[in-house]
């Protein structure tokens, strides 16, 4: 089954391009460290998922590029074509000239309806090229106007046009200290609207990735390109082919569906966080060795202590005692910052992953009580190494990972809303105070639901 990617706005297009790059470079790399046959299966599965065969020498990404100004798309198309390994379809893009002005209302209420037909036609064309459509993957930032506003509108259209397809929104959380002044408004409006149409939101926070670039990748002058490449690596580590069943003979063909099934049992809980280890500068890789137990131990502690990366993990945090009726995060004596999960997915890539002990992830004390612990945890694996890492482990988690960031964004937006600052910029394009209030209410509901897990 194939995934159609929709890249929205500057951020969405810049990241999308890095994702296809990462996937391609992984497939063409010589570090698969597995049998030729395995490599070929992997290659084929990846191709079917992300690329189509067209009358061109190189595979063509299954993607639609959308932006309200032309510079980024034009750059993205030309850089991709120059790589020589893959390209975008020359016609699979739509752009305008004037941009959305960081205005969610402009993106959602003006550009959305105005360009709906053209955009959905492009999506339809890509969908039709797929033998079997596995769903949609949209990439957008919440901070600006196009990715956020137009992105929310397009997601709604996707849901209307493809009611039974899976839709996964990849959402970029902006830096806390402003890229855009009205980013919190745009974020609140985006999240509340996406929640209604999409199946799940997979989130990356710029602040977190930035830290990874600084502390783990040891990059001195960090650019957005560096940040986007780490994000692309992490996404690749989730979406490249895996075996989802123990002893499976074929690479899974329905990644989005499998993801939703394992991680989103209830529509109230759609916020997914992503962790990937190890991360280090490329030139350190030859000197490093990893053991699965070590990686699993770190990943599990990152989960329960809500650590954003593998350095600075709080090892003091422990799961609550089984049988206690009150989760330890509510304990007044000692705040344990324990991260309660609804469901978790671990993905292992590299040799000898067959006998890795994942029992620590199946511990019922990690989870809320409403799912059978057997169902709350899943593992996908492949012996094929990913992107030059001899072993790598990823965690996709539906847990309280994003509770604090969400609460922060809503708090800041509410603070600004109380003063009514900038509201006139939104009402100008048809988003009224009541619409804001609806969005705030919806998100407070989500916050409340995740808090009482």
């Amino acid at each position: 089954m194939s995934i159609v990617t929709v890249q929205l706005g500057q951020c969405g297009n810049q990241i999308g391009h890095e994702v296809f790059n990462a996937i391609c470079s992984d497939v063409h790399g010589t570090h698969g460290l597995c049998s030729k046959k395995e490599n070929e299966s992997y290659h084929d599965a990846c191709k079917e998922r992300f690329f189509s065969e067209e009358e061109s020498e190189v595979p063509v990404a299954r993607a639609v590029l959308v932006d309200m100004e032309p510079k980024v798309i034009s750059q993205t198309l030309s850089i991709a074509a120059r790589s020589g390994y893959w390209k975008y379809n020359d016609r699979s893009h739509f752009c305008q000239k004037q941009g959305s002005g960081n205005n969610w209302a402009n993106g959602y209420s003006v550009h959305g309806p105005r360009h709906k037909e053209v955009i959905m036609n492009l999506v339809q064309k890509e969908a039709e090229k797929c033998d079997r459509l596995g769903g949609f993957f949209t990439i957008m930032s919440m901070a600006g106007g196009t990715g956020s506003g137009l992105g929310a509108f397009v997601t709604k259209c996707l849901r209307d046009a493809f009611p039974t397809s899976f839709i996964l929104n990849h959402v970029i959380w902006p830096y806390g200290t402003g890229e855009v002044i009205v980013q919190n408004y745009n974020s609140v409006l985006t999240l509340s609207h996406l929640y209604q149409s999409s199946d799940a939101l997979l989130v990356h926070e710029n602040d977190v990735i930035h830290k990874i670039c600084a502390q783990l990748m040891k990059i001195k002058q960090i650019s957005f390109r560096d940040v986007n490449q780490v994000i692309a690596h992490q996404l690749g580590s989730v979406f490249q082919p895996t075996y989802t069943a123990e002893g499976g003979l074929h690479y899974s063909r329905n990644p989005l569906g499998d993801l939703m099934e394992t991680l989103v049992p209830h529509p109230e809980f759609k916020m997914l966080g992503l962790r990937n280890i190890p991360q280090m500068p490329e030139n350190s890789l030859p000197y490093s060795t990893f053991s699965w137990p070590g990686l699993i131990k770190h990943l599990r502690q990152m989960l329960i202590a809500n650590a954003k990366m593998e350095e600075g993990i709080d090892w003091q945090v422990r799961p609550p005692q089984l049988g206690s009726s009150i989760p330890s995060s509510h304990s007044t004596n000692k705040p344990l910052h324990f991260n309660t999960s609804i469901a978790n997915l671990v993905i292992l890539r590299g040799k000898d992953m067959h006998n890795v002990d994942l029992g620590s992830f199946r511990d019922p004390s990690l989870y809320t009580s409403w799912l059978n612990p057997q169902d709350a945890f899943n593992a996908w694996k492949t012996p094929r190494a990913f992107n030059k890492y001899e072993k790598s482990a990823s965690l996709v988690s539906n847990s309280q990972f994003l509770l604090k960031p969400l609460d922060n964004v809503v708090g800041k937006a509410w603070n600004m809303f109380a003063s009514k600052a900038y509201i006139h910029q939104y009402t100008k394009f048809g988003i009224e105070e009541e619409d804001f209030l609806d969005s705030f209410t919806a998100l407070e509901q989500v916050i409340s639901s995740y808090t009482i897990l």
Partner: protein
Amino acid sequence: PVSLPFAVGQCGNQVGCRFWDLALREHAAVNKKGIYDESLSSFFRNIDTRSGGDGPDIYKGKICSLKARALLIDMEEGVVNEILQGPLRDVFDSKQLITDVSGSGNNWAVGHKLYGYQYRENIVEKLRKTAEHCDCLQCFFIIHSMGGGTGSGLGTFVLNLLEDEFPEVYRFVTSVYPSGEDDVITSPYNSVLAMKELNEHADCVLPIENESLFDIVNKIHQMIDSGKLGSTVKQNSLVTSSAGSTKTVQEKPFDAMNNIVANLLLNLTSSARFEGSLNMDLNEISMNLVPFPRLHYLVSSLTPLYTLADVNVPSRRLDQMFSDAFSRDHQLIQADPKHSLYLACALLVRGNVQVSDLRRNIERLKPSLHFVSWNQEGWKTGLCSVPPVGHSHSLLALANNTCVKPTFIELKDRFMKLYKKKAHLHHYLHIDGMEQSCFSEAISSLSDLIEEYNELDATKGGPRTDPSRLKIAV
């Protein structure tokens, strides 16, 4: 997207002239192959002149003949004629000019009511023609001074007109405010009458004060003369210089000061024209920096003022650039944003600067700045890959800050000095359409604006109580 500048009046056209010259210089430095591209099309049309005269527009391919997208308006012929006879003559044609002979006599009413009425149709027609050639018109720029008659009066008339005819296109105004020692006695009247129009019809105003431009020019001269700069300064990097421009041969007296304003406009539009990792368009500036409709006055600062000829720029110097942007002597009006209250701040960086440099400096400078309680992290940032000519990097800071208040208060005081004595009022009141109420409404509008800034200032440093959040029934 296209930005369309209107130069109105003597000052406006002198600045405009520098702007077009430096714009050509900037694009020539980047566009080595002579291809007419998207970034050039923001300011210039490409005309096919092979068959002589004005041919059709060429949208792609090699540059044939570049024509500025602009309207030059003056009620005196001197400055505009000079432009048309000078090195920039090929860049304009007569269809873009609206001139008269006798000037506005430093009288806002003559500019606004008399000439406004007289030239309205002419202006609308030329405006429509110019707009027709634009694929996507995003923004109008009005460049003018506040103290005289044409720039001030006719300039604000054009502002009104733009709102009527093209309500969806953003209106940015670069206004040169008169100083206390201005030799035009009635400049306070002209300025306050114009302020009312700016309050009501502009999306964003970038006030400029001659004193600040003058101080910057002096500072540069002193540095060069005193030899403090050590190794040579790159001539074409000076924010005041025309060096390296393709057209100009001889520098004129106000050129240095006007070049600063021209550079301001180039930097402001750079991210809309050139690519970068975090684009910042003009509509984004308006969106992020104007939290309430009338509070749309933005204090600007440009750094660096020059570059030394040595190539290696360690991080420390980069950080110095950020510090300078907030220092009093880099502001283009006599104001000190550091000691007043920020409503919002934008940083547009050009050149080899990455997001980590930006963040490091924001973290470093934040503690010394006061932001309004509902916008504690009120930063809008942009990264444009293409630096200005002669520089490896540069920074434009735009602040919506209460430090504009003193400028407005002084203006009000100077106005009241004249108005109380009814000095020179008759020159205005005898113009058709002018009444005493025009004056009282104008000063009232200015007073209200000052009061809004006062209210904000009163909140500075006060206790901060965040509003309680919505409660959800579980």
